[in-house]
């Protein structure tokens, strides 16, 4: 036994590698809680010890709070880091650990509950003075036209207890509203056991901009700038960058100040993200949600500001100073991240698995690779398709775009289909190069490319 604190890594893939690296940075001993499919993964080899918590399917392993908590007890863990996805925003894991006196590298359970539901998150945001989309709950689905007048068109009908885009309807006029509201209520009732709906202003050409926050749990807030994540396909982020390009000082101030107010109001603990829509047709900026975890795209912020957010999470959870600096609103660098997924962009982004037969990464200053894959690694079919994140930092956005385009071209991954070719298309596109595309940009642009080539 050593007297190093043990960090239980309750995740897999690249974020497991990342947490292991952070554990080593703070002098802790990383132990991996893995499914049988990952018991011999690169992350397993990088950890000091591996505890098999269940079978390959995530719902028999990574999604089981009691199994993860049991592994933490077995490991003698001082802290559990849940990564993103899986149990990262589940109050249950946090509570089980609290009972065992083990720290959770994330917000308190009550924070997770407060921001975990769209309705309550919106209330929290409003209370903290964060701008939200004009919206109102539907009291009576047969009497909705006055709500449309109040909010303006186009608008969205959303299920209050919904998620994943289900039950959402786009409405452009009063007749549609009258017809679609009862349908949406029935669908929400069927899908979520609750037919409650609200209507909300719809922004068809908005950007997705988010603010990286960190709280000490007692009301102190750090703001680490913003990220633009507008290159999305079906709400899945493909490319992220820090800082968000072409953002006026005034808008940036609204985003940062609101996020700070929210962290302070929640006495938020650890790393989190406040997501916003930034409209490109009006001056509107509206709150979307709080992601109460470290995010996939955290490296662009780390590289832009020169900080280690995951190490800060672990330090805070261990009762230490998170060792984070106060920084200005705009970082001294421009950073872009590509998500390289095991998907075939020529076949509707169909995921695929297989053995990595050849792998070669670009090298050089400002290039960072967060990944779990290596030559010979069998990319498993059980989990999400993220293979690697390629992150490049440069002195301004133009240089960063040029550098990451070349870095992507200097990346070789053989053995399965990847999204690298799609990235080359985006990084070479004048709209992306100009900066600040809306979230609605990628889908039709990518489809049009195929038509143009046909």
């Amino acid at each position, binding site marked *: *036994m*050593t007297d190093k604190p043990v960090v239980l890594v309750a995740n897999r893939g690249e974020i497991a590698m990342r947490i292991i690296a952070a554990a080593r940075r703070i002098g802790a001993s990383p132990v991996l809680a*893995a*499914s*049988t499919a990952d*018991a*011999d993964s690169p992350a*397993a*080899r990088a*950890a*000091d*010890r*591996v*505890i*098999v*918590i*269940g*079978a390959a399917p995530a719902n028999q*392993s990574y999604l089981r709070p*009691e*199994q993860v*908590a*049991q*592994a933490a*007890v*077995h490991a003698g863990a001082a802290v559990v880091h849940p990564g993103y996805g899986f149990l990262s925003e589940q109050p249950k894991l946090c509570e*089980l650990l609290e009972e065992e006196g083990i720290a959770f590298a994330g917000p308190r359970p009550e924070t997770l509950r407060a921001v975990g539901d769209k309705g309550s998150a919106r209330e929290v945001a409003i209370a903290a003075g964060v701008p939200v989309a004009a919206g109102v709950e539907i009291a009576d689905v047969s009497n909705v036209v006055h709500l449309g007048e109040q909010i303006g068109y186009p608008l969205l009908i959303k299920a209050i207890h919904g998620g994943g885009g289900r039950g959402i309807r786009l409405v452009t006029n009063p007749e549609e509203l009258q017809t679609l509201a009862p349908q949406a209520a029935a669908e929400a009732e069927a899908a979520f056991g609750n037919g409650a709906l609200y209507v909300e202003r719809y922004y068809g050409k908005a950007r997705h901009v988010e603010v990286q926050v960190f709280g000490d749990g007692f009301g102190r807030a750090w703001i680490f700038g913003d990220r633009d994540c507008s290159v999305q396909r079906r709400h899945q982020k493909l490319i992220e960058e820090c800082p968000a390009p072409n953002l006026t000082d005034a808008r940036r101030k609204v985003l940062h100040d609101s996020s700070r107010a929210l962290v302070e109001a929640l006495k938020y603990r650890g790393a989190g993200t406040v997501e916003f829509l930034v409209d490109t047709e009006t001056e509107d900026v509206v709150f979307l949600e709080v992601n109460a975890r470290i995010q996939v795209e955290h490296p662009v912020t780390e590289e832009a500001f020169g900080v280690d957010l995951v190490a800060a999470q672990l330090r805070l959870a261990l009762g230490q100073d998170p060792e984070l600096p106060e920084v200005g609103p705009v970082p001294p660098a421009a950073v872009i991240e590509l998500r390289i997924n095991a998907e075939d962009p020529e076949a509707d982004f169909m995921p695929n698995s297989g053995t990595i037969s050849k792998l070669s990464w670009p090298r050089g200053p400002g290039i960072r690779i967060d990944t779990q894959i290596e030559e*010979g690694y069998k990319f498993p079919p059980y989990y999400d398709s993220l293979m690697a994140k390629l992150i490049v930092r440069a002195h301004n956005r133009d240089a960063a775009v040029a550098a990451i385009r070349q870095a992507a071209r200097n990346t070789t991954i053989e053995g399965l289909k990847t999204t690298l070719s799609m990235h080359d298309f985006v990084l070479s596109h004048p709209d992306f190069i100009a900066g600040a595309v809306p979230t609605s940009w990628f889908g039709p642009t990518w489809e049009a490319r195929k038509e143009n080539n046909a």
Partner: protein
Amino acid sequence: MAEQPSWQDLLDLVAQLNESNFESAAVSYGNISVTLSNSDTFVGGAAAPVAVAPVAAALAAGTPVLTPAAAAAPAAPATPAGETIDAPMIGVFYRRPSPGADAFAQPGDRVEADTTIGIIEIMKLMNPIAAGKAGVLGEFLAQDAQAVEFGTPLVIIDTNA
């Protein structure tokens, strides 16, 4: 593949390789694979020996009750010969319903698929563990009150007896 080599064939190969001069060797035949090394720096066919390293480290670090992770993997060499009943979940394995009580089952007992052979406690929840197959129990591989992982072999079972 016409016929699978028997377990004895495999042991013979290991014996043969052990007498050889090779620093390291990796042999695979159908779904059987043997990877051996005399060197602690062996990184060819990396999977097996490397995976064992953290386990060895964990054991050396004084965590004897926890069955090593790699042992749970199908092809790992530490898996005992013969059929076993394996832990269906992570937790603490108990052979008795309460301290001082009789064990659920003993070596030599005949069990059916639904016979309880122990309990796994996970976060204070007690989960009875059924044999899952009929046969005669052999040696218990997991001790009473031992921390087990998914796949840790608990007890040998002879399903032909």
